[in-house]
């Protein structure tokens, strides 16, 4: 992979290991565990209080980058300037909202020598919240009915069509289960203020939440699939604890999605399993989930496998993993000298 034995330089975003965490810190932990050659991790942070910037043993160096709203050209110039100093080999973006820009600039980054392993726009759009119902219909997969809306007045009719409760979701993040029209309206305003339009209103499915982390090889094959059941869910709907499952129907579902999209890269499927064992796809997230370190713990280190795929190596698909492996997230007050905070805030790197 890297013949001169110098460290493989990997840039990673999503260092916000907070109560609704980005996957970056978990991705880096998995890489540090699973890479057989020396690596140097370059953190890419949007805000100066992302914990991953300051945590020991996570990033070797971190740079501040521009928000996705600044556009692909600005992002390209920022990454190019970091690359001139750091000689990045691979980049792993971890936020939904930044992926459009990263996919846009991926060929130009490749020309600079920066590899990535991302879906193309066709794959990316197929599983978009706005297209998910049609995707399910096309591939014979169960997806709850939904409708994008742009005005609060549209909620009333949808309440009658879907019945209550229903789910009010943001374009990228957040979902609220609303039991009345008033709750739905409140959620509409709250989420649209934060994430913009449209708001997606989705039929509520009752069941057990199960998630799958998977890695597609870009040719229709799944390199790794790990199903996990959330055991403890925060008020933001995030898994605070989870356990790996043995369930062939979940593995088959993930394989179907990979085959249908020819997905390249990591992704997460959020599923609601009903009492009748129906598997409803609630969302397909186009990146690794925040609980991705569990895949390393269960014996299928997906971030490390992704690096190999990005570098053009053949990776033999994993065939087994540890069932009944738990992750339990925890909070930790990390003490940081103000000089580090000042350094990052003033100079945009640490």
């Amino acid at each position, binding site marked *: 992979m890297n013949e001169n034995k110098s460290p493989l330089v990997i840039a990673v975003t999503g260092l916000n290991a907070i109560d609704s965490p980005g996957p970056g810190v978990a991705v880096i932990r998995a890489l540090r565990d699973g890479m057989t050659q020396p690596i140097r991790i370059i953190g890419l942070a949007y805000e100066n209080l992302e914990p991953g910037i300051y945590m020991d043993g996570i990033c070797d160096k971190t740079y501040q980058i521009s928000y996705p709203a600044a556009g692909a050209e600005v992002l390209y110039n920022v990454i190019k300037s970091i690359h001139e100093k750091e000689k990045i080999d691979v980049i792993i973006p971890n936020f939904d909202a930044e992926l459009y820009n990263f996919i846009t600039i991926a060929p130009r980054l490749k020309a600079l020598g920066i590899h990535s392993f991302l879906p193309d726009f066709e794959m990316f759009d197929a599983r978009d919240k706005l297209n998910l119902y049609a995707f399910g219909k096309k591939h014979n997969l169960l997806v709850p009915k939904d409708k994008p809306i742009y005005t609060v007045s549209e909620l009333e009719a949808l309440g009658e069509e879907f019945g209550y409760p229903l789910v009010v979701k943001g374009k990228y993040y957040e979902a609220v289960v609303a039991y009345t029209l008033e709750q739905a309206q409140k959620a509409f305003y709250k989420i649209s203020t934060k994430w913009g339009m449209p708001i997606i209103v989705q039929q509520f499915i009752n069941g057990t939440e199960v998630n799958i982390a998977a890695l597609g090889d870009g040719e229709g094959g799944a390199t790794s699939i790990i199903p996990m059941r959330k055991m403890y869910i925060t008020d933001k709907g995030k898994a605070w604890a989870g*356990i790996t*499952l043995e369930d062939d129907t979940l593995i088959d579902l993930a394989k179907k999605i990979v085959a249908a999209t020819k997905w390249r890269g990591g992704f997460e499927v959020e599923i609601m399993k009903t009492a009748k064992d129906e598997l409803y796809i609630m969302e397909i997230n186009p990146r690794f989930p925040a609980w991705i370190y569990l895949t390393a713990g269960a014996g299928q280190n997906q971030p490390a496998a992704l690096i190999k795929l990005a570098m053009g190596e053949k990776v033999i698909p994993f065939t087994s993993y540890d069932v009944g492996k738990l992750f339990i997230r925890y909070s930790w007050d990390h003490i940081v000298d103000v000089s580090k905070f000042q350094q990052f805030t003033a100079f945009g790197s640490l």
Partner: protein
Amino acid sequence: MIKKNIATNEFGFVFNPATGDSYSSNPMAAEIIQLMKENLSLNEIKKMLLDKYEVDKMILEKDLDEFVGLLKENNLLSN
């Protein structure tokens, strides 16, 4: 009978790997589950328990039926 992939240990911990659910069972329940895992039929289990413990047959049958119902309710039995 009991699903093949159900995991148990000597402390009565029962784990269903398909759902992620786990349970604590008392020593009697753990013994019955263990016998089920050894592919013994309910009648065989009943006979073994009657031989081993001083228990009224009617009470044992009632308790065993209830316990089997509980296992079924928790999706631990194969169809």
